[in-house]
């Protein structure tokens, strides 16, 4: 190893990695810069690549176009409640599959795993009909509830809960702890890291969920950020400063969460991909 790690190789490897990094990050820079510039500056020749003074103009203009407060609230409301329900359901279902033996266990778990392979788009038409029949169109319920039984979540929780020693659960039973209390008071607290990882993942997935929301949320007051943002681009006269502002706002929360909790997030992703 040592003799081949020559200066030239180092320079070459670093150049490759840094170039890739610039390509990865430049669009973010451009987007945030664009949010502070006017439409004219963004498409000027040469284009302005430094912060401008249109931040407030863009923000207020965007707020007139789409009710920002409401749209941001919708996005948070939908993503947070979805995450909460996915976590509740994934932990208790994962626990049942990890720590109990019961009839039909393997078949049911196999069926749940198979649904992971099922593309969401393949069920959208009947699901839309169901939403219509339930009177859920244009409501938060249509976005939150159909997806809360989440195969990936159940799988991840089951994998993690298998590591809990049986003796711990057995001891609690002998102490007279009820079955739900065992789950809630003994199993759940040990699962904090896995719950955090799954929670971040689910929040981000729902935050960016687009196609289904586009289909079931038509009312301007119900739209989430991605849906509202996509309607901006459809306008006949697009103000790009506003568009960049909107894109920045809808990206900021996920970037912030990711940067704060990236260790849990990446390990959560890898937990699903890499076998131990």
């Amino acid at each position, binding site marked *: *190893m040592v003799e081949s*790690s020559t200066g030239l190789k180092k320079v070459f*490897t670093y150049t*490759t*990695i840094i170039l890739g990094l610039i390509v*990865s*990050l430049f*669009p*973010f820079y*451009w987007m945030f810069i664009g949010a502070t510039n006017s439409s004219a500056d963004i*498409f000027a020749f040469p*284009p302005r690549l430094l912060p401008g003074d249109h931040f407030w103009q863009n923000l207020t203009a965007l707020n007139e176009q789409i009710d920002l407060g409401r749209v941001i609230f919708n996005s948070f409301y939908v993503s947070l409640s979805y995450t909460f329900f996915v976590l509740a*359901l994934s932990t*208790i*279902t994962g*626990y*049942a*599959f990890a720590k*109990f033996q019961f009839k039909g266990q393997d078949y049911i778990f196999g069926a749940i795993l198979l*649904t992971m*392979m*099922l*593309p969401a788009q*393949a069920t*959208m*038409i*009947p*699901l*839309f009909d*169901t939403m219509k029949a339930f009177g859920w169109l244009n409501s938060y319920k249509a976005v939150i*509830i159909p997806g809360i*039984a989440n195969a990936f979540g*159940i799988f991840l929780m089951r994998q993690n809960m298998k590591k809990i020693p049986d003796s711990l659960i057995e001891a609690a039973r*002998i102490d*007279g702890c009820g*079955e*739900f209390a065992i*789950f809630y008071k003994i199993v759940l607290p040990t699962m904090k890291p896995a719950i955090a990882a799954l929670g971040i993942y689910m929040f*981000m997935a729902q*935050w*960016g969920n*687009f196609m289904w929301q586009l*289909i079931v949320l038509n009312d301007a007051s119900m739209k989430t950020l*991605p849906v509202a*943002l*996509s309607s901006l681009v459809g306008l006949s006269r697009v103000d790009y400063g506003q*568009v*960049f502002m909107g*894109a920045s706002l*809808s*990206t900021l929360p996920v*970037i912030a969460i*990711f*940067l704060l909790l990236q260790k849990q*997030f*990446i390990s959560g992703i*890898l937990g699903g*991909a*890499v*076998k131990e």
Partner: protein
Amino acid sequence: MEACLSQEKETRVSLLSKLKLTNKTAPYYFIAPAVFLFSLFTIYPFLRTITLSFFSYERGQYIFTGLANYSRLFGDEVFYQALSNTFIYLLIQVPLMSMLSLVLAVAMNSRFIKWKSQFRVGYFLPSVTEMVAYSIIFSLFLNDKGLLNYLLSILGIDSVSWLVDPFWAKFSIMLALTWRWTGYNMVIMLAGLQGIPADLYEAAEIDGASKLKQFFYITIPQMKPLILFSMLMSTIGTINLFSEPFILTKGGPGNSTMSLGLYLYNQGFMNLNFGYASAISVVLLILTAVMSYIQVKVGGKDNG
């Protein structure tokens, strides 16, 4: 255990107390909500998609039309266009991206690289950004008067109609996909590389195997399950492509970037051809199943 057994005897007393939450009944209670929701919102719609594909939706009514949707589908040029676009992405974008991810992962895995975790975060960022925002940024970047054409003009290259020319529009979609997912795959592959036992390389080193040989005879075989996993995820993502063509090109020009997902959306939710859209869904399903099957088979049993 004693306490559990005596409790069990008591529960035989009445049927009602049999339903009590005990060691035996608990798992059924615990999985019941998820099983109910899966049945209602996944299994039922899945089966119903298949039935609906034999129906036609006219004036608010479903009318049985047998294989009419399928015969229409197989004569539908737009459908073929969407299908062939999907395969073009699968054959070009997915392998190129996987290769790029692997190369970057190998570079990142070099011992002398510092700030690995910082690099990793930077590379991972595109994949967590919200899909509409990133598609919009790309559409502006690729605009006729956009930044990319400006950069080309500095190099003395004529501007390209990225989103208006059928060839370049496809290229643009692939470019956007590559930007978004290369880092994600790189992080997965890097984790795999770090799991390869170092003594394999040391032994090869002693045998005098070149770096290139080590790459092909150690790295690639060891990484096969992970490469397949990441390609499978990319393949499924590509088959279900929607947001990128929806925002960047609306499937145009002349359906040159139409995807199955977008066509399904147009037919189902724009034209309200629910039966026809269901037939497209069935094709999506079959395609996903076949692709998963092939990649799992090629990978052998060792990658689960």
